[in-house]
Structures are given as structure tokens and as C-alpha cells.
């Protein structure tokens, strides 16, 4: 499994004007990890209480699959152009 995307680059332009947007996703991941650590005890208690449910047993696999999805986004590029207008997103 590769690293999650570290930077998201967006570019919007209409031919005359345009602006690039550089979103540092690497700043979000430590924050997300901290939130997950804070929530972990509550999640564990909830899982222990509701362990009988099929959905609850499936939850760890779903979480792992979601994480893999997130990490696989790296390399995604979307580029749309109509005349002079252009919209581009790339995940690095």
C-alpha cells in the first residue's frame, strides 16, 4: 500500500484569468490520526457492545478498504476543458 496523497493541485482558468490552488493534504493526515486516536476508545466500546451485528463485524474490513482507497487516490488526474475554460485536479 502506497502513501496517501500528500498534495492536491487544482487549477481553474477561463483563458484570461486563472488561479492555481495547492492544498497540502499532508497537514490533514496527522490531524485525522489525532481525531481517530481520540475517538478510538469510544469506537472500541461501541464495537464491543454491538459486536453481534453483522455490519459491526464487517466494520474493520470496511475501514481497511476505505484506507486503501484513500491511499490509491495518489496519481489521479482530472482535466476538463471547454473552449478557454479549464479545470484541472491532480493528486500527488
Amino acid at each position, binding site marked *: 500500500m*502506497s502513501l496517501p496523497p500528500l498534495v492536491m493541485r487544482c487549477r481553474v482558468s477561463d483563458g484570461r484569468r486563472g488561479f492555481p490552488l495547492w492544498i497540502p493534504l499532508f497537514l490533514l493526515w496527522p490531524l485525522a490520526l489525532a481525531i481517530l486516536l481520540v475517538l478510538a476508545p469510544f469506537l472500541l466500546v461501541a464495537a464491543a457492545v454491538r459486536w453481534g451485528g453483522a*455490519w459491526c463485524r*464487517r466494520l474493520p*474490513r*470496511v475501514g481497511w*478498504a*476505505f484506507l*486503501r*482507497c484513500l*491511499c*490509491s*487516490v*495518489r*496519481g*489521479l*488526474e*482530472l*482535466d*476538463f*476543458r*471547454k*473552449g478557454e475554460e479549464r479545470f484541472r485536479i491532480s493528486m500527488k
Partner: protein
Amino acid sequence: MSDNQKKVLEMLAEKKITVDEAYRLLTLVGPEEEAGAAAPGAGEPVGKRRPKYLRVSVQPTDEGGEAGAERVNIRVPVALIRAGMNLASLMPSIAVSRASEALKEKGLDLDLSRIKGEDLDQLIEALNDLEVDVKDKKERVRIHTE
């Protein structure tokens, strides 16, 4: 830079091939030669390389290339397709049946609940041979792996 790479760039400069085609050729030529240089005979044949990305591009043709024509160029990592289908296979049955119904309404008769891990691997493997090139008066749609 190898002779093959130079030839590709020359063809691009002479406008015999498009930028997309040049990029594809360079990606095909580069790794093969590097692998061949590192260990002769050890590199996999180019056709058997595992695809990394699925490229979908919609370009206006020469006749339909008016000023406001739409162009779309999407590069999707194959790993994302694999991970997404894995995630889809874990969806609750209610969500799967609803998604299948929605796909059927759009003309795609695909039962997501029947997709298994080994099917996924075969599907990803088959992507290597995928090359769709549809052209009409206005647009050209290309789907290929790289």
C-alpha cells in the same frame, strides 16, 4: 536518451503523432530499455507489464474541433479501481441492490454482489489488453491503460 525515444520525439515534432500517442510510446519504450540494460533478458515483455493507470480521453476531431468543444482527460490509478471494487464488495446487501438497480437503469447490467476477489484480479489483468478508440464526426474517445 535512446534512439527509440529520439524517434518518438522526432515524430512528435513532425506532427506525425499526437502528444498522447508520444507519451504512450515513451512510457512503453523507456522501461523496456531500462530493464534490458539492467539485466538483459530479465525484463518482462512490454505487453505483459502491469498497467498502472487507466486513461480516458475525449478529444474533438478535426471536423468537430470548434472553439467551444469539450476536452476531457482523466487518469485513474488502477490501484484505485481495485480498492474501490474491494470497498464496493463490502457494501451491505441493501446498498448493493440499490447500486445495481441504478446501474441497470443506466443500461449497465452489473451485479456488484457477484464480484469476488479473484474476479477482480482477472479484471485488472485484462485491463492490460484494453484499448478502446471510438471516433465519430465530433469527438474521439480513447480508453487505454498505461
